[in-house]
């Protein structure tokens, strides 16, 4: 297993080589069409028995991350995942997290040097201090060169890696080595009906989905569509994959909304208590 380089004050050229070795970004091997086996890894490394549906969701998500997305190719997506993992140990991020206001702290991120500084800023901030983001920060990110679609895809990747790595750590499995990227080009398909409305980013309403376009709400009962479902709809395939991952690890929307009956081994109250504490620790406004 490759170990993540701990000293990120080393020159960028060496850091890039470390990242290439760590993520195998230099090689996109078409012969590895089989799955990573992330589910097998989790099952083997966990200290506890993991239900098959969670193993399947874990594997599906990592297979999605390692492939080309809508705006980022697979290598870039894995580089983003690497930066998500790197962010908690970034000195700039640590200083900002500890400061009363992150906006008073200037500086450069300790990164692998593969992605632009703008994308690194987005990935690191979403990972380490998302609860104190402002619309102005988002607008500055756009001005610095990331598009809204690219940004939403980064957000989906950050959320997914945070979920996957948190679960693996929670069950004592450690950290899954990043896989090799799949080949292929990003689809670059933008939903024609997306528009600015409720969020900082354009979103797509169910009624504005055109025939033939992917439906980000396909797994959401119409009566349950709310803003958290709209959040990633500018990149529908990310919204679909996030919904599948999220539902597997929490509960489907139908079960979560049925407070008259209990599902699984936790009560609704216990589930919400955990959720609320995690959200409070993350300063999540929503």
């Amino acid at each position, binding site marked *: 297993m490759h170990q993540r380089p701990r000293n990120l004050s080393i020159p960028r050229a060496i850091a890039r080589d470390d990242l290439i070795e760590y993520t195998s970004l230099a090689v996109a091997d078409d012969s590895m069409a089989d799955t990573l086996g992330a589910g097998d890894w989790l099952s083997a490394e966990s200290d*506890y*028995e*993991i239900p098959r549906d969670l193993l399947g969701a874990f594997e599906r998500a990592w297979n999605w991350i390692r492939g080309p997305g809508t705006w980022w190719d697979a290598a870039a997506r894995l580089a983003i995942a690497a930066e998500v993992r790197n962010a908690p140990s970034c000195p700039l991020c640590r200083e900002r997290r500890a400061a009363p206001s992150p906006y008073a702290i200037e500086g450069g991120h300790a990164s692998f040097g593969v992605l632009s500084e703008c994308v690194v800023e987005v990935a690191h901030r*979403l*990972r380490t201090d*998302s*609860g104190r*983001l*402002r*619309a102005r920060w988002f607008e500055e990110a756009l001005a610095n060169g990331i598009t809204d679609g690219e*940004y*939403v895809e980064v*957000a*989906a990747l*950050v*959320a997914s890696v*945070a*979920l*996957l790595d*948190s*679960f693996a*750590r*929670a*069950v*004592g499995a450690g950290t899954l080595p990043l896989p090799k990227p799949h080949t292929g080009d990003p689809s670059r398909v933008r939903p024609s009906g997306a528009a600015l409305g*409720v*969020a*900082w*980013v354009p*979103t797509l309403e169910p009624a504005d989905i055109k025939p033939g376009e992917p439906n980000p709400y396909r797994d959401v009962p119409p009566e349950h569509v709310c*803003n958290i479902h709209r*959040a*990633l709809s500018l990149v529908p395939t990310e919204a679909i994959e*996030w919904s599948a*991952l*999220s539902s*597997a*690890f*929490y509960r489907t929307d139908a079960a979560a909304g049925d*407070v008259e009956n209990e599902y699984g*081994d*936790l*009560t609704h*109250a*216990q*589930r919400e*208590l*955990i*959720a*609320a*504490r*995690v*959200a*409070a*620790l*993350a*300063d*999540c*406004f*929503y």
Partner: protein
Amino acid sequence: MISGENYSLEGVKHGGVSGVTHGDELLAFAEALVVGDDASLDCARRSIVEAMGVAAFVEAAGVAAQFAGIVRVADATGIPVDPGDEEFTEAIQAELGISEKFE
């Protein structure tokens, strides 16, 4: 609460008493996973398994992990509270000290 249980937001805020069955163990686990070190996480993990069993622990891990992700979806995109939930949500946010919306 709709389910009939009463609970205290103090547990959510400070990790203290919640009024929820096995709330202490669940809160300690959530905190250890988000901000704790490996030793505290291991301790919290064992407490849940002893109190509630492996299946409940794995489900708790899933919930905590899911929220570690979903909060970033919400924060990254600036989505507002859904219409109709504002008054209830504002009361909760005020009690939790998350009452400032960043513009």
